[in-house]
């Protein structure tokens, strides 16, 4: 009858258990110990053969060892499981520094982005957005705006740089023609802006285009004033450039406004200190403006004694060039994706 040392068995088993590296090894060991043909079963078969005194003692010890081993196995199993999970997770770790694949994104043309901004600002101030035809007649482009044929202003305002179409008609040289079309059909009070393409016969270079964008504005009421224009234009410029810009008005002459002025803004590059962009003057020309001339009201069958208001015309390309420091106006119509995809 072999003498079985349960203590030794316990130690031996725990020793083996500690050596297990994974669940499978542990399971095999478990089977070796606890299965029907396992070590414990073999040991338990000895119990009936023992003398009664030892039987009780041995049985008690056997029970204890069995319980201890079960607990140890459970503990080891959890430990290995956790280790396994941790290793598994570790394998999933991402290298977040890998450069991403290129996601193809569409881009808006910078003029569209500017128009969105302009329209949003003016809409919030109660202005309606109006459009008009690009092929025009001379009445809406010149005569109704108090510029009869041979008027010196046609040359001076470069409105003489008109494209004529075979078989009649011209390309509008300014969006002011839409002022007339709107006033012919609507009664004051009103506030509108007209963003649109205009065309002027010119030599194309870095600062001259034949096909560019203008922003026309018109506000008419009983007592709309120069002070109102200063407030509206100032607010617009501040919100468009997203910074404080100073605005100044200089006397000017347009046949369709009286008084008339040029609108300058403090140079956004140098904040008015003087740089190359503003030719060291600290100011940038932004466009023309003025109070609608009484004759223009009359030409639209509105009574100038009853109504007054301001009108302005800004160059959208120029506003965008200043805002984004674009040096060459030709880029806008170039279709060059190296340019557009920057916006």
């Amino acid at each position: 009858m072999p003498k079985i040392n349960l203590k030794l068995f316990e130690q031996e088993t725990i020793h083996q258990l500690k050596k297990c590296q994974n669940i499978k090894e542990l399971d095999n060991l478990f089977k070796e110990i606890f299965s029907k043909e396992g070590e414990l079963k073999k040991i338990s078969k000895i119990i009936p053969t023992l003398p009664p005194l030892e039987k009780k003692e041995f049985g008690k010890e056997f029970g204890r060892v069995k319980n201890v081993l079960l607990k140890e196995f459970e503990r080891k199993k959890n430990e290995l499981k956790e280790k396994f999970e941790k290793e598994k997770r570790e394998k999933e770790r991402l290298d977040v520094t890998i450069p991403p694949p290129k996601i193809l994104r569409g881009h808006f043309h910078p003029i569209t982005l500017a128009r969105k901004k302009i329209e949003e600002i003016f809409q919030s101030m109660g202005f309606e957005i109006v459009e008009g035809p690009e092929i025009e007649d001379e009445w809406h482009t010149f005569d109704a705006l108090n510029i009869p044929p041979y008027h010196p202003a046609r040359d001076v305002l470069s409105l003489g740089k008109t494209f004529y179409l075979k078989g009649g008609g011209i390309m509008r040289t300014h969006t002011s023609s839409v002022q007339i079309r709107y006033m012919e059909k609507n009664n004051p009070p009103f506030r509108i802006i007209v963003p649109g393409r205009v065309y002027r016969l010119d030599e194309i270079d870095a600062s001259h285009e034949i096909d560019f964008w203008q922003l026309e504005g018109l506000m008419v009421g009983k007592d709309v004033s120069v002070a109102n224009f200063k407030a509206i234009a100032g607010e617009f410029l501040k919100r468009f450039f997203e910074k404080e810009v100073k605005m100044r008005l200089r006397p000017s002459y347009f046949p369709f406004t009286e008084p008339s002025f040029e609108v300058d803004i403090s140079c956004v590059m140098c904040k008015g200190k003087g740089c190359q962009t503003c030719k060291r003057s600290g100011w940038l020309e932004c466009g023309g403006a003025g109070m609608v001339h009484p004759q223009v009201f009359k030409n639209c069958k509105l009574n100038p004694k009853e109504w007054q208001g301001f009108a302005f015309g800004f160059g959208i390309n120029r506003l965008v060039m200043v805002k984004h420091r674009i040096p060459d106006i030709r880029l806008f119509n170039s279709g060059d994706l190296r340019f557009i995809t920057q916006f």
Partner: protein
Amino acid sequence: MKFSFNLLQSFFEKKVENPKKVLQALTFHSFEVVGMEKRGNDFIFDIDVLPNRTDCYSHYGLAREIAAICGLKIKEKRIKIKEDKNLKIDDFVLVKVKEGCERYSARLLFNVKVKESPRWLKQILINCGIEPINNVVDIANYVMIETGQPLHAFDFEKIEGGEIFVRFAKKGEKIVTFDGKEYELDEDILVISDVKKPLAIAGIKGGRDSGISKNTKIVLLESANFDPLIIKKASQKLNLFTEAAFRFSHGLDPNLTEIALNTAVYYFNNLYGKDGIKFAKGIIDHYKKKALTRRIGLDWKKVESVLGERITKNEILKILKSLGFKINKNFIVEIPTFRKDISLQEDLIEEIGRIYGYEQIKPKIPLSLLSPPKRNDELFWEKFIKDTLVSFGLTEVYNYSFVSQDDVDYFYQKDLIEIENPASSSYKFLRPSLLPGLLKNIQKNQALFSDIKIFEIGKVFKQQKEYKEEKKMIGAILMGDKFFEAKGIVDSLLKSMGITSFYFKPLDEKKFAERSIIWNPLRSAHIIIDGKNIGTLGEVFGTIIEKRKIKDKVVYLELDFERLARLATEEKEYEPFSLYPAIVRDISVFVPHDELVENVMNLIENSGGNLIRDIELFDIYEDEKENKKSLAFHLIFQLEDRAVSPEEVDFTMKKIIENLEKNSNFEVRKQ
């Protein structure tokens, strides 16, 4: 316009020390200063005098303006003329003004010795951009820059018969001008003539034969006021733009003619009195309707209302007086004749505003009732479409509205609108389509970018029978074999605009062959809504692509923006979805190569009845050997009010297969 600071100084009572201060005041209250240059002991100002302010086209006028804005005083020159009592001008000259001339004045100078001018005089002329010629012409020009009135000097002995006419030229009449060029005249051109021939083109340029030469002894000095419109037209017609024509065509004060003549005589006397120069007694002066001062009533409340700034009555009075205007107790303002630009109350308000200073007007937000602006639906949808296309990965471009002959050689030529005076041959026509621009964009960008997808929304132009049409279009171009991507773009775009009742139809070859041949008809489709074509998409013809050196296929899609914007709607109504499970079955069918997928889908749908909720094509396989294609579909069976039973689906599938196989060219693949 160039001004000498020294000459300006001579008109002020007190000397002005700092020219920069003067320039700054001019910028803020009058005119833009383009530049300033130091020349010797003088400063030359370059000033953009506004085109309606002809009173400042002179040193005297500008000095008067500076005096008003800087609070200075003008020194009045007293001019005394010693005339020769024995030489009466009326005994020598007879002037007959027929037309085109508001005032014609002249003086006669004897014992003139033509020579070089003194240096100081030449220098001022050069500084102001005028070339010195001889003392007579130079004094005339000097008086012009001083007073603003152009003068013309004739050699009196070259005028036949002592008679002068101001008349329109006869057709075919010719004149050789001072610089030796010959001009043929007609009835629109005003001339100064003697009994036989034209002596000068009135207000524009003098004739060679009647001009001042070394031998001239008697000078007839003309100082006239011609009709601005006539001078402007003649100058344009002859393509002859002179200093005098520029001044006359802007309109001058007729009261200047006499002042200028007397100023000239004053200078002739100062410089050449010792040499024995004599001035005939009297002045020729044809001045039928004397220009009078204008009177304008001023409502000072209107001043406040227009400027939006309260300016005191006293301040207003001070400003108007500084400009040389007279004001009575009832605020009736009397305007001197040299201010031809002022005829309305608004003109006076401008004067008050600019002298007061626009920078002093405080901004005020308008207090009118806030009525919300009307929404511009077209612009809303334009923005919506741009947002959608950009979200699909397309980039927006803007192209010129102008195109060249080469750009549009594949368009119907009779529809094209041609520019009378194009900037260059590259911009000869208005674009009939957005395609030419987009093709150029592809050509330009293909070397640097792969996978180019771009679009433009803009106007296209077409000559219709009675009118010229302009229409806003959407154009998009995709580089590569991307018909179905383009179709997907149209499909998603229209659906996002709330348009669902559209379908695609193979291109109508005949209809297109007559007009513009853009798309390959075998690989293109019309987009139809309510039976009308609202757009087209497809592969651009290889010949067009090759000519433009584009390396890959190109798919162009074009949509009528204006019609789409009218059809679009933001209204969306919730549709309840079925709470019952769906059953999905697959079917695949061999059909002839040229069979339209749409036909097969319609057949399945019609056989399936209301049990079929959706059919999805998930695979196409082309078997070129057999000239067949295999189509594989997911069929989704679902009802809204109850669950569908597998038996029902089996029954329906059977029916679908039967119906498909009724066509002997179709073969359903058995699983």
